[in-house]
C-alpha cells in the first residue's frame, strides 16, 4: 500500500510536487478565534471533532476568518473596529502577512476569497464618510490593495460568495449601524438606521437589495449562511427596546420576498433579540441560530418557518454546518456537535471561543 508520505516523497523526487493544499493539514475542518486564559488572543484550526490542529497568536481580539480556496492559508480578521487582518499559513500557524486597512477605514471582522483564490474581499467602514465599503486585495502580490467599492449600505458585517447562473455574487449583510473609532462601538445613527442585504457583482455592481419592513428597521442584519440551493440565511441583532417580540432569523432568495422564521412563536424571545451565528443543516431543510445572550441554539424548519428545537448552551456563539449536522462553540471552551436531537460534547478547551466557526472547504 502506498503511504501518503511515500507518495509525496515520490512526487518530490519527480519534481511534480504540488503546491501546498488543505489536504496537507491533517484535516482542520474549522477556524475559530479565541481568548486565552492569560488574556491573549489566537486563531485556531479545529478538526471536525473539535480537536485543536494549530493555533496562531493574534495581536487583538479576532472575529471571523476567510480560508483560501486552494492553499492552506487563512485570513483572520480583527474584531471591529479592526485594524489588522493576519494571513496565516495553516500548516504551521505562521503569520505570512498582515493586512492593514487604508487610512480612514477599519475592518468589520469578515471577508471572503474569490473562488479562484486570486482576490480577497473585506467588509470595511469608511468612517470619515460614514460609508460601507468592500475592499479588494490581490493575493498574488502579497495581498496588495487593488480596489474598493460601496457595500450597498452602512455597517457591512458578514459577507459571502454566492454562485449564480450569471457568475459569482457577493452577498453583504449591511447591518445599518454607523460607528466611528473616535466613539468606539457607540451607535451613531439609530434614528435613521436601515439595514439591508445587498447582492453585488465581484466588481461591485448592485444586483439586488433586500430591506425588511420599516417596523424591523432596528433589526441589524449581521450574519449570513448559504444553503446548497443558493438561499441566504440571515441572523439579526435588535437595537430597539428590550422585550420586543421579534424575528431574528430570515431567509432570502433573490426575486422572492424574504421569509422570517418563527414569527408569532413566543419562544423567539428566548433569543433576547440577538442572533450570534446562523447555519443551515446539511440537508438544507433547517436553519439554526445561536444566541449567547439567551444561552441557546434554536433550530427552525425552513418549509414551515417553525421553531422545532431548542438546545440550551451557556454562552454559545460559533455555529457551523458539518457533514452530518451542526457544530457549535462556546465562550466556556466547549465544542459540541448537534446532530438532530443528539447533542455531543466533543471537546473542552481552556479557551473562550469567540464568534465564529468558519468551515474550511
Amino acid at each position: 500500500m502506498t503511504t501518503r508520505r511515500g507518495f509525496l516523497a515520490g512526487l518530490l523526487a519527480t519534481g511534480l510536487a504540488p503546491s501546498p493544499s488543505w489536504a496537507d493539514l491533517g484535516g482542520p475542518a474549522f477556524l475559530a478565534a479565541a481568548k486565552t486564559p492569560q488574556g491573549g488572543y489566537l486563531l485556531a484550526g479545529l478538526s471536525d471533532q473539535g480537536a485543536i490542529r494549530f493555533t496562531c497568536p493574534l495581536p487583538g481580539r479576532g472575529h471571523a476568518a476567510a480560508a483560501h480556496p486552494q492553499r492552506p492559508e487563512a485570513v483572520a480578521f480583527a474584531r471591529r473596529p479592526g485594524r489588522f487582518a493576519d494571513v496565516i499559513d495553516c500548516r504551521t500557524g505562521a503569520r505570512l502577512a498582515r493586512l492593514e486597512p487604508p487610512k480612514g477605514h477599519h475592518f468589520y471582522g469578515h471577508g471572503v476569497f474569490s473562488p479562484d483564490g486570486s482576490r480577497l474581499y473585506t467588509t470595511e467602514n469608511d468612517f470619515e464618510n460614514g460609508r460601507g465599503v468592500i475592499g479588494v486585495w490581490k493575493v498574488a502580490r502579497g495581498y496588495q490593495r487593488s480596489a474598493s467599492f460601496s457595500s450597498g449600505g452602512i455597517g457591512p458585517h458578514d459577507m459571502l460568495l454566492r454562485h449564480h447562473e450569471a457568475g459569482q455574487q457577493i452577498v453583504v449583510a449591511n447591518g445599518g449601524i454607523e460607528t466611528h473609532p473616535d466613539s468606539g462601538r457607540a451607535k451613531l445613527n439609530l434614528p435613521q438606521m436601515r439595514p439591508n442585504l445587498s447582492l453585488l457583482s465581484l466588481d461591485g455592481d448592485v444586483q439586488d437589495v433586500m430591506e425588511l419592513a420599516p417596523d424591523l428597521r432596528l433589526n441589524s442584519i449581521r450574519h449570513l449562511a448559504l444553503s446548497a440551493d443558493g438561499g441566504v440565511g440571515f441572523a439579526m441583532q435588535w437595537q430597539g427596546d428590550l422585550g420586543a417580540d421579534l424575528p431574528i432569523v430570515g431567509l432570502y432568495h433573490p426575486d422572492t420576498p424574504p421569509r422570517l422564521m418563527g414569527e408569532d412563536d413566543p419562544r423567539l424571545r428566548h433569543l433576547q433579540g440577538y442572533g450570534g451565528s446562523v447555519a443551515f443543516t446539511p440537508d438544507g431543510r433547517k436553519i439554526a441560530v445561536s444566541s449567547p445572550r439567551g444561552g441557546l441554539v434554536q433550530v427552525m424548519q425552513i418549509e414551515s418557518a417553525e421553531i422545532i428545537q431548542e438546545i440550551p448552551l451557556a454562552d454559545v456563539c460559533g455555529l457551523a454546518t458539518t457533514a452530518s449536522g451542526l457544530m457549535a462553540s462556546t465562550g466556556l471552551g466547549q465544542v459540541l456537535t448537534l446532530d438532530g436531537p443528539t447533542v455531543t460534547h466533543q471537546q473542552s478547551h481552556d479557551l473562550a471561543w469567540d464568534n465564529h466557526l468558519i468551515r474550511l472547504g
Partner: protein
Amino acid sequence: MSSPLPQRIALPFFVSWKVFDVKHLLFAVAAIACLAPPALRADVVDEVLDDQILPGMQALVDSSAYLAQTAQTHCTPEGGKLRDAYDQAFDDWIQVSHLRFGPSETKNRAFALAFWPDSRGKIPKTLAKHLQAADPALLEPNTFAQSSIAGRGFYALEFLYFDPKAASAPAAAYRCTLAAVMAQDIATTARAIQQDWQNSYAAQMRNATGRYQDEAEVKQELFKSLNTGLQMLADMRLGRPLGRFDAPRPKRAEAWRSGRSQHHIVLALQALHPLATALADGDAALIARLDAAFERPTLRALRLEDPILAGVADPAKRIHIEALQQEINDLRTLIASDLGPALGVLAGFNSLDGD
C-alpha cells in the same frame, strides 16, 4: 376541585406596606435563618426543591384552582372575593416565574400563563377578536387551550377584568364565561407544571445522572434562573416603563391595569433572595453580602408608594425607580462576580460582548 385556598397572608397591592415594620421583619427572618447550624444544612438542591420550588408550585396550583372556582360565580373584581383570588394566584405565579426551565417550558406552559411583555399589543388584539366573535366553541376548554397564547394566562385575564373597554364589551355574559374559561385554563396549566415537577423533574434534579450530568449542572440551572429573574426585574419590569428620561413609557409597566406593578417587583425580589442564599451554600460572608444587596432594593421597592410605576414620568419620583433599577443591577453584578464562580459559572465572553 381541590380544597379552598389555604390561609396564607395575602397582601394585595392596595394594602400599604408602611403598616408593617419592614426592617424588623427582615431582621427577624435573618435571625431565624441564623439559628440553623451549618452542620445541619441540607443539600443545596434538596433545599431549593423542598423549601422553594415544590411548595411554590403547590401554592400556585391551590390558588389558581381557587381562582378558577371563584371566576365561575364572580365576574367583577372590584374589592371582593374575585379580586383576592386573582391577586393570590398571580402572586403565586410571580414567585415561581423565574423557574423558566423544564416543566414550565414544556408545551410553552409558562407563556400560556404569562405572555409578557406584550410589545406588539397582541393581548388586546386577540381579546378584541374573541369578544367580537363571541364564538361559543372557544369556551370549550380543549379548544381554548389550543387558542392563541396571547389570549391566555394572567395578563389576558387582567385585561378582561380591568381594562375599561373590555369590561364594557357588549357581550357581557360572553366576557364573563371567557374569563372563567381563562381562569380554568390557568389552573390546568399550573397543575400540569406542578405535576411534572412532582412526578419526575424534581427527581431528575436530585439524582443528576440523566437530563443533568451532575449536581454542578443542576446548580447552574438554578443559578441561571436566579439571573433570569433579576434580568426580568431590571430590564423588563423596570427598564420597559423607564424607557428613556425624555421618553418614559408608564403604560409599559407590568400589570398596571390591576395596579400590581410595584408589588411584582417586591414579590420577585422576595422569591429570588432565598434562592441566592441557598446557592451560596453556607458561605456566611457571601450570604451576608447577598442579604445586604437584596435588602436595599427590597426596602426601596416596598417604599416606592407607586403601585403602577407612574413615577417614571415624574422626574422627582423617577430617580427612585432608576435607583431601584441600579440596585438590582448591582445585585446582578455581585451575583455574577461572587456567586457564579463558586458554581462554575463565569461571566459570558460572548453574551456580554458579542458582535
